[in-house]
């Protein structure tokens, strides 16, 4: 773990950096809650809770705008260099990624009303565990950002594989389920998108960890290998936000 940097001669510079750090930390906490709550609403078949998630997404958007404003002010006023510069740029990028994670939470929540109308789909029981794995990654990625901890960042990157494995196995079970129960195809397809969203959340958390790693060490982590084997099965999962 990197040695905590000494204070700047101009102390208000430190105050501004800390303010940005804590805002990014809060954004991460909210995004994590959005993912957890959306999957929770899904499992409890609670359409109202899902609506609450959709409405709360605006808060993340506002926080991202605030983080951008803060970062731009620091760049304009302080002209940061070296690790300061890397950190401010990372904060800008991380806040954008967190906002995207929030969008996935919103997307998941939006599917809940339809799914509560239909009968439960068996393989979905794996979703809460997958959601826990991804929210854990978000939490740790943000912790390593706030603590400037490159070692923890490496660990978070390694965990992306686990989320990919969840997705690959859920993908297969849902395909089988759809073949065996054609009248459940609609809900199964929705669940497939939800699983894909969670898988993307894992990618984004990994991305944050990579940015933290670069911000702290000045070096990019080694190329990591992707394990999404479902691409060859040619399924389109593009969707509007």
């Amino acid at each position, binding site marked *: 773990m990197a040695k905590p*940097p*000494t*204070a*700047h*001669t*101009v102390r208000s*510079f430190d105050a501004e950096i800390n303010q940005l750090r804590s805002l990014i930390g809060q954004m991460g906490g909210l995004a994590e809650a959005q993912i957890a709550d959306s999957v929770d609403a899904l499992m409890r078949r609670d359409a109202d809770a899902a609506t609450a998630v959709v409405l709360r997404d605006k808060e993340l958007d506002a926080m991202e705008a605030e983080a951008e404003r803060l970062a731009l002010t620091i760049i304009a006023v*302080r*002209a*940061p*260099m*070296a*690790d*300061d*510069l*890397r950190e401010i740029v990372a904060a800008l990028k991380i806040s954008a990624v967190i906002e995207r994670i929030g969008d996935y939470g919103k997307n998941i929540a939006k599917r809940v009303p339809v799914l509560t109308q239909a009968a439960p789909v068996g393989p979905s029981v794996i979703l809460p565990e997958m959601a826990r794995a991804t929210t854990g990654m978000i939490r740790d990625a943000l912790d390593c950002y706030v603590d400037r901890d490159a070692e923890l960042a490496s660990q978070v990157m390694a965990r992306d594989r686990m989320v990919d494995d969840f997705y690959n196995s859920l993908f297969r079970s849902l395909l089988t389920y759809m073949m065996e129960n054609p009248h459940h195809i609609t809900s199964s397809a929705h669940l497939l998108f939800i699983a894909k969203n969670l898988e993307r959340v894992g990618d984004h958390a990994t991305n944050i960890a990579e940015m933290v790693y670069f911000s702290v060490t*000045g*070096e990019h982590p080694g190329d990591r290998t992707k394990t999404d084997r479902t691409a060859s099965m040619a399924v389109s999962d593009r969707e509007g936000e």
Partner: protein
Amino acid sequence: MAAHEGAAADGAAETTLKMTARDVRVFYGAFEALKGVSIDVTKEDVTAFIGPSGCGKSTFLRCLNRMNDTVAGARVEGRIELDGQDIHDPAMDVVQLRARVGMVFQKPNPFPKSIYENVAYGPRIHGLAAKKADMDVIVEKSLRRAGLWDEVKDRLSDSGTALSGGQQQRLCIARAIAVNPEVILMDEPASALDPIATAKIEELIDDLRGRYAIVIVTHNMQQAARVSQKTAFFHLGSLVEYGDTRQIFTNPRETRTKDYITGRYG
């Protein structure tokens, strides 16, 4: 002349050594102001010297054209070469050396003579122009290169001291250029100038790059980052870190460098 690879991993152009300094020490009386500095100055680059006040930047810069010879009580040790030639060699003509390695100071110091004479003085004492017409060419070319020609072409007989600070500094650069130097040393050339005049000096440095090896001392980190390709960080009489400017300002290796450029020094 030795050639070596630029240090950048992303394939920076090849650079050629113009000057080399090895284990240079400077004493002012008993005080050791430079404690064994070794550095290369590349021909194609602008090299920036940065570091806290009193760390020895000016002292080292003055070593490169033996200006410390004129400083009472100063003693220089170590080896400095220009194109592989020892500048302390008794055969080295110091006046000639200072023409080859020109200098521009923090405070513009034009002679109290006409603009024309300020530029013509050096070429005249070095016998670079046989006729008035030749001298006119040198003066115009130097003022053009210094980005000053258009502003002064109609008032060449006005006194150099009547120009604005920024114009005076460009006049001093024209004066340095006029004797066909190979290296130009600049000690905080823009520190007394407003942002526009500073930008003009920086633009000028960029224009001159490649034609002359340039070494600039600056306290302005952004300026060092903008104008130079190589940066050397000095601290307490030692060279702490030398490297590609981009690397120094985005990812310095030494904690002391990082603390200095990020404003955490002292």
